[in-house]
């Protein structure tokens, strides 16, 4: 039995402890904002926060999260008003939207650790998150906007 906190709520899981967090939050908890895009850490669609740090939900097992605190996109802000979410809307970032929870979670964790990233730090910080629709120009602008208001 693994115990962990998801979005502030105590959860326990008695299934296979090697189950990736991605499938635990989706299949067991119905938290569908975390997306599957590759399953092997190559796209970032599954990005969640583990004790505040961005991790790939497809590579992090439930066992590795035992006793820790996981935040998914649903828990980032109760009403969707995290500054990164606001920036994403103000700059009309999404196209299909599928990659965007992962992008937002990545950006939020990055800004938490480094509130004023340089452009180069933004590009590098976001390079693990693929957007097949090609929203990168706006993603980079939105991270900057969330960081500096510019």
């Amino acid at each position, binding site marked *: 039995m693994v115990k962990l906190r998801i979005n502030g709520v105590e959860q326990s899981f008695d299934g296979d402890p090697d189950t990736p967090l991605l499938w635990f939050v989706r299949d067991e908890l119905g938290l569908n904002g975390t997306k*599957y895009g590759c*399953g092997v850490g190559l*796209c970032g669609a599954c990005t969640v926060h583990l004790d505040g740090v961005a991790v790939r939900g497809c590579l992090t097992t439930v066992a590795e999260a035992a006793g820790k605190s996981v935040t998914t996109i649903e828990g980032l802000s109760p009403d969707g008003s995290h500054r990164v979410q606001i920036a994403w*809307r103000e700059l009309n970032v999404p196209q*299909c939207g599928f990659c965007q929870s992962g992008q937002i979670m990545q950006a939020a964790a990055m800004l938490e650790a480094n509130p004023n990233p340089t452009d180069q730090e933004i590009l590098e910080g976001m390079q693990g998150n693929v957007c097949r629709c090609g929203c*990168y120009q706006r993603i980079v602008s939105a991270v900057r906007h969330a960081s500096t208001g510019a």
Partner: protein
Amino acid sequence: MLHHIEKTLSPRPLPSGGTGRTVIENVSRRGFLAGAAGFAVALQVFPADAYVAYKHGGLTMPNGVVDDPHVFVAIAPDGTVTIVAHRSEMGTGSRTSIPMVIADEMEADWGRVKIVQAVGDEKKYGNQDTDGSRSLRHHIQPARDIGAAVRHMLEQAAAAKWNADPDDVEAIGHEVVHKSLGLRAGYGELAEAAMALPTPPRDRLRYKDEKAFRYIGKGAVQIVDLHDITTGKAVYGADVALPGMLFAVVARPPVVGGTVKSVDASAALKVPGVVRVEQIPGTPLGSKFKPLGGVAVLARNTWAALKGRDALKIAWDDGPHAGFDTVAYEKELRASAAAPGNPVRDQGDPEKALAGAARVFVREYYQKHMVHAPMEPPVALANVADGKCEVWGPLQSPYGARLDIADYLGMKEEDVTVHVTLLGGGFGRKSKCDFAIEAAYLSKLAGTPVRVQWTRDDDIRHSYHHTTSVERIEIGLDKDNRPVAWRHRSAAPSFLSTFAPDEGVQHPIEVGMGLEDMPYEIPNVRAEQCKAMAHTRVGWFRSVSNIPRAFAVQSITAELADELGRDQKDFLLEMIGSPRKLDWQAMGLAQPMWNNGEPAEEFPFDTGRLRGVVELAAAKAGWGRQLPKGEGLGIAVHRSFVSYIATAVRVTLGADGTVRVPEVHVAIDCGFVANPERVRSQMQGACVFAMTAAMHGGVNFENGAVQESNFHDYRMVRSDNFPEVVHAHIVPHPFAVHATGVGEPAVPPFLPALTNAIANAGGKRIRDLPIGDQTKA
């Protein structure tokens, strides 16, 4: 009251993850304020004869166009307007833009509009096949008709209520007013009486003057799913669940047309959570969207299904395509394109002109099979129970899926319901509903709801691949170096092979994408298609055959300009020649060119507009200026999906050969634009998509099987190296210049603009795609 349509249209609430409807509570402040301010302005409407309804390709699509307001609009007593989105949303914004056009024309307040997504039912909604950059092109006019009809009905209802002359009342800003009597009634109050009226005939409709548009053309209305997307609430294919649902993954034959020889599922069945293992029958090439077959593992959760699949021991019979090999096939295509093929265009006497030319300039361009790789891999949920089948999925063609599922299961169309979720990207992959058929078939076998999830590996290995092609062009020059003859041979397996026994011949649609309609003003032109047999499922991919055609035509143009010591842009304009409307008979075609299904009278191929975008992109990019060493500017133009796009790409070439794209200027002439903000986002996205295609796009087959499997070897452009600033320059037009395609046409010109820029930066001339490491050699 309301609204039989509310009941019948609105899909029953999704079993989980939301209601399937979007309440737009949080309209863009800018958009709302602009609209509210606009309400003070008197509405100008014009009689029907000021708006000339035009013929467009939507009318000849299967099941045509429906513009009955009763089908698309419902108004609740509280004034909430519900508009049906009948096209699938995959990132272009059409789920927002078409209802926005209806709302504007009917004078509804966008802040009080709700969107519901239609189920697949073309008899009711008309064509729903979201493909071919057609959504606004085919639906902007019907959307105005719908909106104008609702406005008319509301005015009639108010006039009846007040016993007034309908000419004295006016619908404006979500209410109808009688100016001289000082009466007003809200849309909610009038809804029941208004919507009970019959649809007015078109000649009774009056349309808003374009100057009175509140939302159309402004770019201030945000996509309706924006808040849900940024909070993780938006519902995609894998986000719908039913009680008792099993999670399935399928091991498919590595080679298309392969079948299961034997399977040992004992270890798989021991994986905790695995419930059952089922076979899906294999299908040969040419089986349309029938599943490839294979072995499915059904489990209590995705993780168990994946582990179960890993534990399967399957022996495959690889079937007739086991010898397919990319390296060998490239040689085959080159040999095919080197010999005469079947003429599809014969203008003047190209053979004689080539034979008599002072010199002939020949180049050959090659592109590999590619994979759409939408961010959301294929996925669908089905529930077959009590003689009915209900499906949820990210489907570009929900009605097509409904028919194909009914056919595969041996059910009647009426017993199959297909709900459309948001699509996490489509790019043509999700026009093919094999994944939904798999779910339906497995649900029928299992007697429970089943959701089939494709992994990324599945997606890359079992695609409906973009064609691979050799495009060989010969240009005959006279003694003064004037081009007098053009011969283009195209060898590319056709998507026809996915639908019928393969004859190695391209479909008229593929021929129509830059082969038959090459616009240069050269007196003698011949286009031929050369035989190419398919060995994988070939399917359309964003921009389809326009990609290799634009690459070939725009590359050889720049190469010949260099050869002749000419400026590439000037030479391109010279090749396009005089501003004129292309005439199929003068072009030596046997029938009118395909023209993306649009009637030529309404949507002529206008070389003046083609020239216009070249000049615009060149001017914006500062064509002709001196660039630092290691930088290059490239330009290319192509008309596709009836839109004219020129792209100027600036490249920097690192000392190690790394290609970077700091800036792109895209000039787009796509007629009237409903939502310029979404056009800009499509231009930006298309450049990224095209850069991926150019740099990395290409799968390799060995022994019949795709060798790539995930984003490590099927690479994507990422934020560490992408077209950093894409400027979209939209040529402004009034409504009378018909709206044309946006989702696809910016992809094709990017590739040759990029490779021209690389050459101009001092890099290698790229003739074979993908570029990969060629600039590093």
